[in-house]
């Protein structure tokens, strides 16, 4: 019924519109403007160009300033501050280019509107001007490329030796988190060993996996480089932590990584924002299925001491799930020697946490 009403209303609107249109044509035929080549409408459009430039430009400037505070997520990492500076510098550069070119476009459109008896200036080319406006953007681009390249190599370069290691694994539709435990080595995981309990697919026949522990939240210490190792066990996901300016895909079959140094603890950020409920959030940023939009995790930035205490208090996966461990012990052959050892096992062992203090 509602659908029918909607359709009827639309139909009615169409009819009214058609009648008005017909009326407009008839009046223009009688007033003689119907066949006129260039009439009033030309100057009306020219004026509208100016109106659009100033009205639109004014609206844009106003809404930009108005929303400016909302569009800057708080920054809590070292490289995040550098990126922020680069972002707004680039925005300023393109803002200048934007203002100049748009202003010229609309002002020229207004100024050079058709006038009876005037003739356009026959100006087909000028190599000097062409060269100038090729070289100037090229120089600006070169500067931006250089700055971007330097920052990019630093950010994506190898993590410092003293980095804290945490691994996250994306799955439909939540994030699994694990830490290397006391031995500071992430144990072997194997996707064939995944089941409802062993969500990571821990291969407990590998000694270094015995003390690995899993958590729901990601805890990281302030002021220490954090290396996030990233996996996916089903489809593509992406680790996106807007406040840390971190983003990296989680790719099934290909572990990825990203490192950053948090600068503000969760408590400090809560105090600064005056929002006691504030949390750093990890969002999935590569479409992964129906509940993609709800796939999040919380990151807690602790003072290094608190972090140490928290870390020490965790129980390992093997301790929490003795039946899984028992099942591994029953099997005579260590599964780790079988075919599907993940690429991770071949990598150098992660650097100990202790080295950072």
């Amino acid at each position, binding site marked *: 019924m509602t*659908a029918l009403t909607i359709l009827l209303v639309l139909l009615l609107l169409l009819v009214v519109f*058609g009648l008005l*249109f017909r009326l*407009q044509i008839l009046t223009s035929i009688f007033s003689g403007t119907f*066949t006129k080549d260039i009439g009033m*409408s*030309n100057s009306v*459009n020219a004026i*509208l160009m100016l109106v659009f430039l100033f009205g639109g430009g004014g609206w844009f400037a106003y809404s*930009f300033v108005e*929303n400016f505070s909302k*569009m800057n997520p708080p920054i809590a990492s070292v490289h995040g501050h550098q*990126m922020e500076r*680069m972002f707004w510098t*680039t925005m300023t550069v393109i803002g200048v*280019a*934007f203002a100049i070119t*748009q202003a010229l*476009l609309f002002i*020229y*459109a207004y100024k050079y*509107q058709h006038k009876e008896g*005037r*003739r*356009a200036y*026959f*100006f*087909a*080319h*000028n190599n000097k001007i062409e060269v100038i406006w090729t070289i100037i*953007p090229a120089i600006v*681009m070169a500067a*931006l*490329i250089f700055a*971007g*390249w330097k920052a*990019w190599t630093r*950010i*994506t*370069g190898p993590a410092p030796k003293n980095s804290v290691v945490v691994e996250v694994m994306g*799955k439909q539709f939540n994030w699994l988190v694990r830490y290397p435990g006391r031995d500071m080595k992430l144990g072997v995981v194997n*996707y064939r060993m995944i089941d*409802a309990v062993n969500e990571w697919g821990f291969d407990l026949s590998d000694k270094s996996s015995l003390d690995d522990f899993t958590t729901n939240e990601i805890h990281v210490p302030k002021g220490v480089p954090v290396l996030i190792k990233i996996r996916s066990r089903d*489809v*593509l996901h*992406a680790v*996106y932590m*807007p406040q840390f*300016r971190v983003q990296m*895909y989680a*790719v*099934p*079959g*290909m572990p990825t990584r990203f490192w950053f140094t948090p600068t503000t603890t969760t408590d400090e950020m809560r105090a600064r924002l005056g929002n006691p409920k504030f*949390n750093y959030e990890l*969002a999935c940023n590569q*479409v*992964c299925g*129906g509940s*993609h939009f709800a796939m999040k995790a919380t990151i807690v930035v602790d003072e290094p001491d608190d972090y140490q205490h928290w870390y020490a208090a965790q129980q390992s996966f093997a301790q929490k799930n003795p039946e899984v461990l028992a099942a591994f012990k029953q099997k005579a052959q260590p599964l780790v020697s079988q075919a599907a050892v993940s690429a991770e096992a071949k990598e150098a062992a992660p650097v100990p946490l202790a080295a950072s203090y």
Partner: protein
Amino acid sequence: MAAKPNLSPGVQTQGGIGTGPVPATEHGEHLHHDDHEHHDQHWLWKYVFSQDHKQIAKQFLITGMLWAILGGTLSSLFRLQLGWPEGTMEWLKPFLGGWIEAGKLNPEFYLALVTMHGTIMVFFVLTAGLSGTFSNFLIPLQVGARDMASGFMNMLSYWFFFLSSVIMFSSLFIETGPAAAGWTIYPPLSALPQAISGSGAGMTLWLVSMALFIVSQLLGGVNYVTTVINLRTRGMSMSKLPLTIWAFFLTAILGILSFPVLFSAALLLIFDRSFGTSFFLSDIYIAGKALSNQGGSPVLFQHLFWFLGHPEVYIVIMPAMGMVSEVLATNARKPIFGYRAMIGSLIGISLLSFVVWAHHMFVTGMNPFLGSVFMFLTLIIAVPSGVKVFNWLATLWRGNIRFTAAMLFAIGFVSLFISGGLTGIILGNATLDIQMHNTYFVVAHFHLVMGSAAFFGLFAGVYHWFPKMFGRMMDEKLGYIHFWLTFAGVYLVFMPMHYVGIAGFPRRYYAWTGFDAFSQFADMNKFISIAAIITFLGQFVFIFNFFYSIYRGRRATQNPWNSTTLEWTTPIEPGHGNWPGEIPAVYRWPYDYSKPGAEEDFIPQNVPYSQTQSSNLPYEQEMAD
């Protein structure tokens, strides 16, 4: 009886290019014969399975318009969800059926809407509808050819597109829903029906449809390139081609070189989905089962996809650039500034477009060194794009501008291209892309620069060449209303989207309400949704104007815009073969507007220098003598 033209391209082109005038009697006799044949032509061959490039162009245009209405409708649906995440959609149940559950849009169907909106707009509207329409319509008319090099292949091109359209459309109605993995169909999501229901039959249909679409593009592209190279009329050297033709020509080359790579990606994905191969799949545990696939790489798919996907955005925008250049020059009554620089920058953009694809992949786990290389190559593309913008501005400078609807859309195109293009400088910077990747900043960027701008190019083209297509004029006043509504609307939709993106809102999110970080722009999203839906409804002004004017529009004159190019030397409604007599020869470049000393403010390309003694430049005078 009026002499109607000869059908077979071989014979005609001889008349046009090589041998000069054919003796009148022989010509006439021959033509008469063809004329007779034509009257007997069944309507099915004349209007449906037509081999005439103008008819095929109209078929592409109208199919593209239908697709655009559908694509716009889908976007309105998901904008409703984004603007009012808490609101009820019960009233849409009659249309969407089971996809509305307890008054809420199904989140998987939301992704299907987004996916189909992207697929439809990028491929079916802006590739087939824009390039297909105007390459077909304008190439033979503007280079001075009777028809495409192969009319039959051209017909096949449309019908493959049609078949592809039917399959894609039918996928909307199947039980598991259409493809829902995003228009980029990244595996494993697109490969595994367990991951999302749209990756079942919907994805199969998507891939089949796309394979047929690629066939259509290749058949069209080969034809466009061949026609431009071989069938130019006498005197029409490459350096006398209108910029439209240069743009279509380079677009077709891009398509021929890049679409086969998408085809290979689609084929490998079909293998992975149906035949148990592991090109893109590895180490997957899903729906309670570990899959046996080992050693594939999802990143490989992304390389293959974007090797087409990036040139694709230039396939979309370059025809618009060409048409806008033409419309700006015509209506500013001025030569396009820097004709050669315009061609050079088109060539530069075309070349660069092949070596920038991985800027879509900075944070996908690709080697960071590759990221630096692609950042470098990507940002270079700003230089030829800048040259184009400056040249358009210089074309307006000291012009004598006539604001036709087409001219308004051309100016709008330049404005949108600037606004959207500049933010590309941010996204092309790998460092900044870490934060901006897959946020609404990206959505705003490409909707302005290749979505809206290409649409504006399309509108400029339709308003400008409508008289040539249908022999009637579109209503100018409705054109003005359409333009100002759309122009303001597009900015109101996409400018605020940048703010949302800078704040880090991820794209393809059904709702942001679950995140503290993304909750601050609820009002802004409502605003964007309202603006988007009004702008979409505004397009019906155009649709009305278009169909009304086909039948009731003011009758066109032969050259309503006082333009210089060859299509305006044909009869008001050109028949099959385009020119009733001999194809005119070309003597000059296409932009002799407001030439000092000339009587009129335009000199068509087919006027020899010997007839324009008063306005010839010194070197032209030499040619005249």
